[in-house]
């Protein structure tokens, strides 16, 4: 009883809730003879065929359609009867067509797909025409397009000129880090690559100032718009890690195998491109020597931020390079997470957020040995072996608001970059005279530890306003950078107790501000520019060094640490007024000698 109730309930639920509409009838000509016709049903307003039927030998047809709309468009068409359309209510009925002999008129068409179309200053490259079988990402196809070169570090040039903007569907999501797009967007999702020559991204300046900048815009295929695409890649493997021992010295303790096992590489990339929103979020990680941060190289900056340099001339001694490709010598464990989001607010405003975080630890080992003939029966053997491990944690965030209107442009970029990095080097330095009278000149273990965090914050604002034929340009940028670094070097000598420990503290700061405003007005073909420029640059440096031992006059050593302190600020201020006169005609700009 229970099973039958459940069964019958299931059947009821399985029944189609939508009612099916049955339309039948005949397609006959004026004499009542049947016409060879195809009858199709489309929902009113669309041209998508929902159902179709062919007339039989008597001219009768029967259509079954499931549709929610309240009216349907029924079309009877045939080669010799042309096309007849009737709009009916969506309910089962009988519908007859009376058709006349009519020759079907077709428009003659021929395929013309030109590979490159030129449209004013825009060149359109059809991706399908250049794509080959093993091309996976759009970056692979860009390399084949004539005029476009993609260099090893991801920089794109058109006819030798680096591009100044990279758009996807007319929006700049990546703000200069277009490696993330060329390396991850699938080639099959892109329909056209447009090269925009003489590109001026600021609408308020279009037609006023000549420019020879080049930009690239990717136009996606309809299927790729408005959908979330996720690409995943997983790879694994193993490598033969040999024993490590070099000459007469073995590094650190015993035999350490070089390289890690197992090897892995993983990538997850999520992309979303819609009319008012774009997003690329990815994670990449590997320990096979690939440089994950390469795609994050910024090839152009959206705005001229003030230059911030926190002066910190410290560093550790690292093993020297081998000359082999980095991929073969990088012993790393790297992860990178990047999130880029663009939101279109209103008709002309955009809000862009780019965030990326890199976490990597890289290990390097190096040994150098020198074996010299000292005399006929003596040799001087010196060796230096270093193990270098660096830990990197880099965070980079960029928040940009801009409003690109016909008469006014405003952009504000807030940048925040943080680094928490440290380097760690352990080394062994030995020097021996071998042979008849052996002397040990030193057997030292040296430790270097460099803690080097840094922080940079800046905010830049740019405002361009047109007043009729005159233009006002306002630029204000302010920023702060700091580097509180610590370098510790310790030397443990294996000879009777001589160990020293040095500590260098350094705190470097840079506060900078930039302000300039320009007012341009045009008199015929001349443009006259007046401007005010102000800049303030403050550098602060504070250092503290400890650990040196002093050799006293009487031969004893004074171990009291003497510190060397620095605490100074170096500030520059600048204010200037300038004027410029230019003669501009299409293709010819000559600035007159300005005062």
């Amino acid at each position, binding site marked *: 009883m229970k099973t039958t109730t459940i069964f019958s309930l299931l059947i009821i639920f399985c029944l189609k809730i939508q009612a099916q509409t049955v339309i039948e009838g005949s397609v006959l000509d004026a004499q009542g003879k049947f016409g060879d016709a195809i009858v199709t049903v489309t929902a009113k307003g669309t041209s998508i065929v929902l159902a179709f039927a062919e007339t039989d030998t008597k001219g009768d047809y029967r259509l079954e359609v499931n549709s929610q709309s309240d009216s349907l468009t029924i079309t009877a068409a*045939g080669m010799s009867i042309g096309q007849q359309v009737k709009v009916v209510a969506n309910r089962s009925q009988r519908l007859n067509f009376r058709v006349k002999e009519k020759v079907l008129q077709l428009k003659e068409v*021929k395929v013309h797909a030109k590979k490159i179309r030129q449209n004013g200053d825009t060149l359109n490259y059809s991706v399908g025409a250049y794509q080959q079988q093993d091309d*996976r990402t759009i970056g692979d196809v860009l390399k084949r397009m004539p005029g476009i070169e993609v260099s090893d570090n991801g920089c794109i040039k058109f006819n030798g000129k680096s591009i100044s903007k990279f758009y996807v569907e007319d929006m700049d999501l990546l703000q200069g880090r277009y490696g993330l797009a060329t390396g991850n967007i699938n080639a099959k999702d892109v329909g056209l690559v447009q090269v925009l020559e003489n590109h001026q991204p600021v609408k308020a300046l279009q037609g006023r100032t000549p420019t020879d900048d080049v930009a690239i815009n990717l136009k996606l295929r309809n299927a790729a718009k408005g959908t979330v695409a996720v690409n995943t890649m997983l790879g694994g493997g193993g490598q033969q890690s040999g024993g490590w021992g070099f000459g007469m010295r073995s590094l650190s303790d015993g035999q350490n195998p070089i390289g890690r096992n197992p090897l892995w590489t993983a990538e997850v990339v999520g992309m979303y491109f819609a009319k008012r929103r774009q997003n690329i979020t990815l994670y990449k990680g590997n320990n096979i020597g690939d440089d994950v941060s390469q795609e994050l190289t910024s090839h152009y900056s959206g705005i001229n931020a003030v230059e911030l340099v926190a002066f910190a001339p410290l560093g550790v001694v690292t093993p020297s390079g081998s000359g082999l490709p980095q991929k073969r010598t990088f012993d790393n464990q790297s992860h990178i997470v990047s999130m880029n989001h663009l939101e279109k607010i209103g008709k002309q405003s955009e809000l862009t957020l780019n965030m990326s975080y890199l976490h990597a630890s890289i290990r390097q080992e190096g040994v150098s040995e020198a074996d010299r003939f000292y005399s006929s029966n003596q040799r001087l053997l010196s060796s230096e072996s270093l193990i270098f491990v660096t830990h990197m944690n880099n965070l980079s965030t960029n928040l940009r608001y801009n409003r690109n209107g016909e008469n006014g442009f405003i952009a504000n970029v807030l940048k925040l970059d943080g680094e928490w990095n440290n380097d760690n080097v352990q080394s062994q330095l030995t020097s021996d005279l071998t042979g008849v009278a052996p002397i040990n000149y030193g057997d030292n273990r040296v430790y270097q530890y460099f803690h080097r965090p840094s922080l940079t914050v800046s905010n830049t604002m740019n405002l361009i306003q047109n007043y009729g034929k005159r233009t006002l340009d306002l630029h204000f940028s302010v920023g702060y950078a700091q580097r509180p670094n610590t370098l510790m070097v310790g030397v443990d000598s294996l000879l009777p107790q001589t160990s020293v420990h040095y500590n260098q503290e350094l705190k470097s700061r840079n506060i900078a501000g930039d302000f300039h405003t320009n007012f341009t007005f045009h008199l015929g073909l001349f443009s006259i520019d007046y401007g005010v420029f102000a800049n303030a640059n403050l550098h602060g440096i504070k250092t503290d060094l400890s650990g040196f031992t002093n050799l006293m006059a009487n031969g004893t050593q004074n171990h009291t640490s003497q510190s060397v302190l620095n605490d100074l600020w170096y500030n520059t201020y600048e204010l200037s007024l300038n004027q410029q006169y230019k003669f501009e005609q299409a293709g010819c700009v000559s600035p007159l000698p300005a005062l």
Partner: protein
Amino acid sequence: MRSIIIFFICFSFTLHAQEKQGRVMRPNSRGLGKCSVIGQAPIKVIYALNAKDISDEHTYLDSQVLLIGKGLSKLYSRFLELNDSLHDDFIKRNPNATSIPRIMFSGGRNNQYWSEYQFTDIYSTNNTYTCYAKMPWAMERYNAFYTESMYQQHWTLSDEQLSILGYDCQKATCHWRGRTFEAWFTSKIPTRLGPWIFGGLPGLILKLYDKEHLYTWEAVEIKSGNFPIIKSEYKGFIKDTREHIYKLQVAANRDHLKTAGARDYQTGQLKSKPHPYEPLEKE
């Protein structure tokens, strides 16, 4: 809302199905022979088969013509038609020639080789296709014609639209003879025909391909006018079944020498040179 995420793993080495055409030698040109006009067609459609660049016909595997008449249609290879007419013209101009070039017109990119999709002429009338299959070199003794019923595919209409040659096309999919096919048809041309022996949709099929993109037909030209439908003599063609011809064609593509019965003239052994091949119809 966007919690539906489509997950797919793409390997760095792409397992991309290559179009696997056999390396089968062409038969010698025979010319059109005696022809007769069997009808008139108001519509002529030209399809490109496996084009690498749709605007350059040298990259097509074949350029095929579909003549649509009232109750009658013909599908044939344009490259072969040009080759055959040059052949006949050569004979007319050189009646005393003792030999003829084997191939007069080299069209398309695989022009040294034979393909059953190029070398089969298909006539349709009365809900039946009559296919005249020309067999490759050293297999001309198997030249035959066979019949197939029309509208074998059962299509499922989909919402997607695409613009081909200025016509708005709608997508339909079907599973037929072991493969899944996608077709884009336009109801503005009310005929139920398409390339090869595909049809049954409420409009002309302008683009058709299998899911793995091994075979792609795309319309490149549509003309209206008054085109004569010509049927040649097909001298020596015997009546055969589709199954037998299909088996021969697939075997020839997989190993032409063995199927043709080629023997090594020194040892008398049957020669064999296998080649990977993916047929359009799996059964």
